[in-house]
């Protein structure tokens, strides 16, 4: 098991947002977290990455308990995180953004960078452009590319397609699949539930800070109760 987070209870002071969430994911698989706003989807990613402390529960990476490791050291352990907003360095060039992603790497990462340009060809021509001037889709590519520069074992993506035009949504989803095929576990939070569950190996439906359903993406898509939990009928 690549990542095994059990009974996560966490919040921002006051009442916890998560009231016991379980997440399990194998390497090379795509896990999708869906659910209504306020269900705690983003909070799950933040607590797996260590940005907020756990009140209860634990996070294990390949069987090793990493609950007390600070976030910048989790990068070194192979967890990369792409926040939902403000996820690129706007005043740096594309290439510098990628270099910052590789900040903790002491080895030669030119091959990783070339791989990134293969994965996201539009970035190659724009490598010396200021990232803040790129289009929304290209920014998202920079954001994901930055996270991938450490060759992570687990990639955490917080709503990577929000605000993107449909063509780019398709593009980004294709790339996520490609990343997972290179034996990286990808955990995605998505508002765009159907689209995301279609590519999910495992889907986690959250509500009120708890797991409501956990199943394969396909099963969840065909589960009428899931639709009901979304639309309240």
């Amino acid at each position, binding site marked *: 098991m690549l990542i095994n987070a059990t009974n996560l209870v966490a919040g921002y002071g006051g009442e916890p947002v998560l009231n016991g969430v379980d997440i399990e994911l194998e390497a090379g698989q795509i896990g999708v977290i869906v659910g209504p706003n306020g269900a705690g989807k983003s909070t799950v990613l933040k607590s797996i990455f260590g940005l907020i402390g756990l009140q209860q529960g634990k996070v294990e990476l390949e069987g090793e308990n990493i609950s007390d490791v600070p976030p*910048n050291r989790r990068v070194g352990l192979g967890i990369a995180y792409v*926040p939902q907003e403000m996820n690129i360095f706007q005043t740096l060039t594309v290439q510098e953004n990628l270099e910052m992603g590789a900040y903790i790497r002491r080895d030669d990462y030119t091959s990783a960078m070339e791989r990134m340009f293969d994965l996201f060809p539009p970035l190659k021509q724009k490598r010396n452009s200021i990232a803040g001037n790129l289009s929304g889709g290209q920014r998202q590519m920079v954001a994901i590319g930055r996270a991938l520069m*450490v060759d992570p074992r687990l990639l955490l993506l917080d709503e990577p397609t929000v605000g993107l035009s449909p063509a780019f949504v398709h593009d980004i989803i294709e790339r996520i699949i490609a990343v997972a095929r290179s034996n990286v576990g990808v955990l995605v939070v998505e508002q765009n539930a159907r689209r995301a569950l279609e590519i999910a190996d495992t889907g986690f439906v959250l509500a009120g800070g708890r797991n409501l359903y956990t199943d394969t993406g396909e099963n969840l898509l065909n589960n009428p109760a899931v639709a009901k939990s979304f639309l309240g009928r």
Partner: protein
Amino acid sequence: MNELIFFINKVVLSGAIIGCIYALGAIGITLIFGILRFAHFAHADLMTTGAFFALIFASLLSGVGPIAGLPTGFVVLPLAAAATALLAIGLDRMFYRPLRARNIKPILLLVASLGVTLMLQGITRLFAGTSIRTFFTSEKKDIFRIDVPFDLATRNIVITEPQVLLFVTTIVSIFCLHQFLTRTRLGKAMRAMADNANLALVSGINTDTVVSATWIIAGVLAAAGGVLLALDVALKPDLSFNILLPIFAAAIVGGVGRPYGAIAGGLLVGFSEALAVFNWSLLIRPFADFLPAWIEIPTRLSIVPTEYKLIVPFVILIAVLLWRPTGIFRGQIT
């Protein structure tokens, strides 16, 4: 022709000189603002303290200068810069970091830097007194008089050795800073953290290292500015307050968080000061014959009287704050 030389001496050179000093201070202000998000009021005193360090080292190592053929105060600049950088890091550890750790409002960090500036002032004056000090007690200040190859020119362009050193140091510092910020891993991390501190943390950047690097650069440049200013004129202990607002003006004019903007801002403030008090009637007088007789050229025709020179940067500062608080070069990206 002499009038033009006078103009070059009085405006072009002296504006550039004070502009360079302001720029060296303003880069530090702007870097600290960009990365630590507060207005560092102790910066001007960091500059004077740097000059005092140089004074101490120069008195310990007197005689080094003549060997190198340079003023002793300049030769010991690396030592003074190192000491100032250490001081800057020490001040951060002692006074700013504990407050940052408590997630205090940035405005209270500003207040803390006021406290630090008072302490620095108190200590330097307690140990060094309040009298004016100069590096040139035993050495003499080389003055270059450059002949202008025109028949009409009888005066010379005058520039002193410290002023030449100032230009060289400023250009070298800016070049090195540019290389550091755009080429090195740590320099890029500094820009990254100024851009988006949370994402820098998420990328695994060690923010403590970046903060230390910021203080080192700010301290070194502050020492350079302070020492060169003291070499150019003299070291007055109450100098710091006179340069505090100009360097803030320079940093804000250039857009806070933008080192290159700070350089432009420093020069702009420096030239404005020089231009504002320049006596324009000197430039007009040669053309008196061409003007109708009823126009009388006053003996003094400057934009502001010399006594008001000090308020020129404040006026620029306030004008920029009100007109465009993001600085006039906001389009520029660091």
